[in-house]
């Protein structure tokens, strides 16, 4: 499933950091490290799943990659070119190649604009098409996402959640982007529509030759769609690897607990104990390994002292845990 990895990766992220200045903390001003030095890369035509709990920094990564926010450190390479700190016109030109689908389809369409106006917007902004050609292209896009041209002059409130998300996707692929960042595209949808949406996304990727960065807290969804998975915890990656291998035998305790939290269709096996407590505040990061206060497999005091880095554990997999370093 990891096929198509020839040549340079389409997107490569090196030591990416994003810190927000916030009020509070001991000195009245603190720095919130939402993303704290992460590396990953996606091959052309691949699909990387970025998973983690709420507050782990997943969505910040999405916004950094799409240029909605500027990173405070590290590099983002798109087709080998650094794009992290481009601003204004140069960044916007690049925006044609990287597009994003947002979490909530109900909120990400302007309620006062027709479906036509919403989908046509990127084509109008970048002055690609106008007039009859524009209408034709929008109709074609509607067909691509499985909606008909009769939706052209509807308003968002007349559509269901799944339909709206399809419109959002049509808008995102209007400029023929190479990379599509999907920020929890299914979490606002009904479960029955979720499965259809995933199937649709898979077909779309195949038809349009897209590369996906798929952000989700829903592991079942990631398992269905992604070739590779990166598990994120408190702004760091704790484990990366091919989806099948990682789901079969997670190496990091956090991945283990996260996977165990997915209900199994086997009633004989007792459910493992759930992860206790909430994710700590990124304003007060625990010393040593960031996961040690909640880790069910702490080795000893060393976990509170040493901060493990990502190390290779074979099969193209990496994990950031002292237990892996030891072996």
């Amino acid at each position, binding site marked *: 499933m990891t096929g198509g990895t020839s040549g340079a990766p389409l997107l490569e992220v090196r030591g990416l950091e994003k810190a927000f200045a916030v009020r509070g903390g001991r000195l009245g001003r603190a720095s919130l490290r939402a993303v704290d030095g992460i590396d990953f890369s996606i091959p052309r035509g691949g699909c990387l799943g970025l998973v983690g709990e709420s507050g782990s920094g997943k969505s910040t990564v999405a916004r950094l990659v*799409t*240029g*909605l926010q500027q990173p405070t450190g590290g590099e983002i390479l798109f087709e080998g070119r650094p794009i992290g700190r481009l601003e204004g016109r140069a960044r*916007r*030109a690049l*925006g*044609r190649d990287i*597009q*994003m689908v*947002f*979490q*909530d389809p109900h*909120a*990400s*369409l*302007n*309620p*006062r*604009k*027709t479906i036509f106006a919403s989908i046509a*917007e*990127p084509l109008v*902004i*970048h002055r690609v098409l106008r007039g009859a050609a524009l209408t034709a292209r929008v109709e074609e896009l509607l067909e691509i996402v*499985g*909606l*008909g041209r*009769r*939706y*052209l*002059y*509807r*308003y968002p*409130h*007349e*559509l*269901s959640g*799944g*339909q709206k998300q399809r419109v*959002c996707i049509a*808008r995102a692929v209007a400029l023929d982007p190479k990379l599509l960042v999907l920020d929890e595209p299914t979490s606002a949808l009904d479960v029955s529509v979720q499965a*259809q949406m995933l*199937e*649709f996304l*898979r*077909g*779309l990727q*195949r*038809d349009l030759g897209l590369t996906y960065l798929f952000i989700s807290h829903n592991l079942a969804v990631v398992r269905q769609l992604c070739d590779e998975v990166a598990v994120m915890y408190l702004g760091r990656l704790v484990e990366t690897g091919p989806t099948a291998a990682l789901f079969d035998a997670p190496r990091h305790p956090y991945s283990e607990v996260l996977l165990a939290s997915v209900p199994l269709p086997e009633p004989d096996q007792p459910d493992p104990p759930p992860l206790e407590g909430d994710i700590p505040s990124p304003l007060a990061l625990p010393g040593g390994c960031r996961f040690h206060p909640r880790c069910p497999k702490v080795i000893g005091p060393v976990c509170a002292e040493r901060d493990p880095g990502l190390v290779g554990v074979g099969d193209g997999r990496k994990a950031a845990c002292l237990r892996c370093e030891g072996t």
Partner: protein
Amino acid sequence: MSGGPIQERAPLLAAEAAGAAVPGGSPAAAFRRRFLRHPLAVGALALLLLIAAASAGEPLVEQWLGFGAEQIDLLARSAPPSAAHPLGTDELGRDLLLRLLRGGRVSLGVGFAAALVAATIGTVVGLVAGYLGGRVDALLMRLVDSVIALPLLPLLIVMAAVDLTKLGIPQSVADSGSASLWRIVLLVALVGWTTTARLVRGTVLSLKAREYVRAAEALGAGPLRILRRHILPNALSPVIVATTLSVGNVILIESVLSFLGLGIQPPLPSWGNMLTGAQETIWSAPMLAVWPGLAIFVTVIAANFLGDGLQDALDPRTDRR
């Protein structure tokens, strides 16, 4: 998975489309349809148009009655309604209907012009403050606070008393009737924009955090486009309602200033100065106060109903009902 993506999508269409049977149509047609659903708003619009048309057609009525609006007939002072004077005459024997219509020109003109100018200034200030935020926002909002903190009436009196000729405006222009008209429009707009500015700023603050604004940014839209296409249209309906509401206020402010001798100067009639002029004869000729009062009342109410209807018609989400 077996089967191409097209085949997989096909069954979804039927299922998803089942719930969507709302009439579509072009945006303009949808707007008309939604507006026509409000009988009160349609009636109010018709009434306002009627008053405006009658006021604009005042010279025609003059011809028809064979009597000038400023013509004084001392033999028929405070005359009751008759064929020659449908609403009777005032204390100087001027025809009341003609004065009412001509006053409508002034009052409606001043009311709508001042409300519009104030709303425009307020919207621009609010958009800039809300969207840019930070220091610009703080500065503009402190300006709004200081304007609100100024006592309205003394300020208007001082500004209305400014001698225009001292500002380098020729005597002939300063003395003309339209000068006092524009002066009122400007004065009211200068103090009236603050409400709109606050309203718009608050709306923009909430709108700019919406996901569709983020989406537009991600698509590569610049700030001007986002403001014009995404934020302004969604911020407009409270502005429209506030503006129609303020039309009534402006007409009242004009009458107050006219009462103090600083607004529209007689013999140019406005509903405001007709009303105040009628105070002296309220017991002997009450209808002189009733007619302009009624005109103000009807106009203000109609403007409010119109605002309500427009608000609903401008919002496509109300199509569901």
